[in-house]
């Protein structure tokens, strides 16, 4: 499409896990699944929010979009051109058109450069494309300084001539973020990725910077990819939002529709987590249980299923979920009884994909199978319904799960949701 500025198609980013030599020799390579098959597109002039908890891969998506991180697979299109494999001089030129603003304005500025030099630097980096040869060095320099001063004034760094020679350490956080924004927009980019751009600022400054971003968008026809963990900020500024969880987009659509009526259980939980400043309005919150799982071994099927309040039997349960369940069961003295002596110790259980196994004394195998079945029957949760069989053969007790249903993005009321509830 003509007016699509940025399009990500099945972008996957895996990071290698740092391992010692011994680990590398004896275990298979493991990777962090930072981003898995993420697709979305940004139309020109739109503000798209990328929302999720920390560690969900939203920053990686942002950096990959502007080619600071190489995608493991998938394709990236910028203004209709495939830029997945652009490199060298071409990539350098491309950077003029897409910029990124990082979370920490102080760390983003070189402490040895004055504010003016820092904002001017993109112009000098791209001086050849900007016509420094035709203009001559002095004329170009004059033009560049004038442009820096006008951009500084535009982003509210006033008086510009006064601040031009200041070092980053002399400025306040809000001023530094304005300087970073000035540096990003001075080459007149089409796309601006804002990675937690206002998270480190005070509330009062935050509102002003957001307003500035909206003004700049209107004046320069910018398109934003706005990455944040803060739902209130996203609601204020975004046209569309994409909710990410553990490297996957779970729901994507118009911001006001998602805020009014979230569909994915994770989105619902996130929105319920926003505090309501009214002590009388307490309602029952159904928040996700436990912690965000390790991205090195993401859960099978829907990645949210182990924490999901609305989980089904077909969401992707597997062997290790049974081991976790058993661990929890055994550590509860009221329910465990003498289960520990028969089913334990928990370290004896091995999970491998859809199965969990326990090496047991051949005499005991039948007893263990009986006890596992009894424990499962007492707990009528989605996971127990996903178990296909519990069997004992030779010296091994095997708990086998059914294969999960295939998870697809489904169109639900003008948005894409990735959840079996809607399939």
């Amino acid at each position, binding site marked *: 499409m003509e007016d699509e500025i940025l399009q990500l198609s099945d972008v996957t980013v895996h990071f290698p896990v740092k391992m010692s030599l011994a680990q590398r020799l004896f275990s298979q390579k493991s990777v962090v699944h930072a981003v898995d098959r993420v697709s979305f597109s940004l139309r020109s002039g739109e503000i798209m929010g990328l929302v999720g908890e920390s560690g969900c891969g939203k920053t990686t998506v942002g950096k990959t979009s502007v080619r600071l991180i190489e995608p493991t697979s998938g394709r990236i299109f910028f203004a209709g051109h495939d830029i997945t494999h652009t490199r060298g001089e071409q990539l350098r030129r491309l950077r003029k058109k897409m910029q990124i603003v990082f979370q920490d304005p102080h760390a983003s*500025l070189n402490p*040895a450069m004055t504010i003016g030099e820092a904002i001017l630097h*993109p112009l000098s*980096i791209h001086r050849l494309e900007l016509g420094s040869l035709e203009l001559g060095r002095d004329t170009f320099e004059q033009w560049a300084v004038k442009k820096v001063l006008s951009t500084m004034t535009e982003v509210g760094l006033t008086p510009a*001539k006064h601040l031009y020679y200041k070092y980053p350490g002399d400025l306040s956080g809000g001023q530094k973020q304005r300087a*970073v924004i000035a540096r990003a927009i001075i080459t007149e980019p089409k796309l601006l990725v804002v990675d937690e751009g206002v998270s480190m600022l005070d509330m009062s400054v935050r509102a002003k910077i957001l307003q500035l971003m909206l003004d700049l968008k209107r004046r320069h026809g910018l398109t934003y990819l706005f990455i944040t963990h803060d739902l209130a900020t996203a609601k204020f500024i975004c046209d569309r939002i994409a909710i990410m969880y553990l490297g996957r987009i779970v729901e994507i659509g118009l911001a006001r529709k998602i805020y009014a009526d979230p569909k994915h259980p994770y989105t619902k939980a996130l929105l319920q987590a926003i505090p309501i400043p009214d002590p009388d309005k307490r309602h029952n919150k159904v928040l996700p249980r436990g912690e965000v799982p390790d991205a090195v071994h993401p859960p099978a099927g829907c990645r949210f299923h182990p924490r999901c309040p609305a989980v089904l039997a077909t969401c992707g349960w597997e062997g290790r979920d049974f081991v976790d369940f058993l661990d929890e069961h055994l550590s509860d003295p009221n329910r465990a009884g003498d289960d520990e002596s028969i089913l334990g110790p928990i370290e004896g259980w091995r999970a491998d994909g859809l199965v969990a196994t326990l090496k047991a004394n051949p005499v005991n195998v039948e007893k263990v199978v009986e006890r596992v079945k009894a424990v499962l029957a007492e707990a009528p949760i989605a996971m127990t319904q996903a178990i296909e069989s519990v069997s004992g053969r030779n010296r091994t007790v095997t708990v086998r799960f059914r294969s999960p249903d295939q998870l697809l993005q489904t169109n639900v009321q003008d948005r894409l949701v990735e959840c079996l509830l809607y399939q």
Partner: protein
Amino acid sequence: MTEAAAQQQTEQPLERSSSSVGRLLDLLIQQRRSLAGAMFWIGVVVFFSFIFIGLAAPLIAPYNPQSIFLTPPSQPPTLQHLMGTDDLGRDIFSRVLWGTRSSLEIVAIGSVLALIVGFPVGLFSGYVGGWIDRGLVLVMDSVYAFPGLLLAAIVALFLGKGVFNIGIAITVIYVPTYFRVTRNHTISVREETFVEAARALGANSMTILWSYIAYQVLISIPVVFSLSAADAILTAAGLSFLGLGLERPAPDWGLDLSDAQKFLSSGAWWSSVFPGVMIIIFTVGIAFLGEGLSDIANPLLRKERA
């Protein structure tokens, strides 16, 4: 206001604020009463006095350091010969003053060359990383593992005597020091957000390395410079003492010390004490300068980082 007046105004840069170097200087002056500050300023005084002595030796030395007085040799200090005369009847005071000059030359050549080699190689190694970095670290570490004086002696043996050759021998010892400090600092600066931001702006590796990383890393150099210079004086004196440094009859602390030690037993203490004292004062002075600077500058570096 006319347009020209407005133009005038934009071209008038207003007050400059202090850079990190300026801030460091402020801090050094502020902290002159603290232990580290006092050490630094004592070191500065000693260092510049010795530079003055080295430069002005022809003017302040009462005699030619090589001229022999026909009075009996090995005179104790008198008003005529402030530090006495040596076994050949030469004025020790003049020789000690002139010896400052050769020490300074050797240290300057050694430290500057080591900086010129070690700093860019360290920057490059730290920035590119990978197997090139690992290879360079291995080479530098094996040089570093060698006892300094022994290594310098071997190099000096091959190159021969003379100020420049000793300078080179000292360079070889200190290149790994500059390399390590630069490389390690480069690796930490390389991961800073502003370097990634520079990449996002479209800067190429050369620009990133020189405009963004080198300046930051340079801050850690003065400390290394002064600490290795102090060590270099000792090494240079040691080489001369072993007969691998300068050629007789050049005035040199190490050489004079070596010649004088045979007469120590006959009671001629002055011919070995004065060159020795000079070595001690100069070394301790520069070491004070380096230690003081590192104590004061490092918290500053830490604060800038935060």
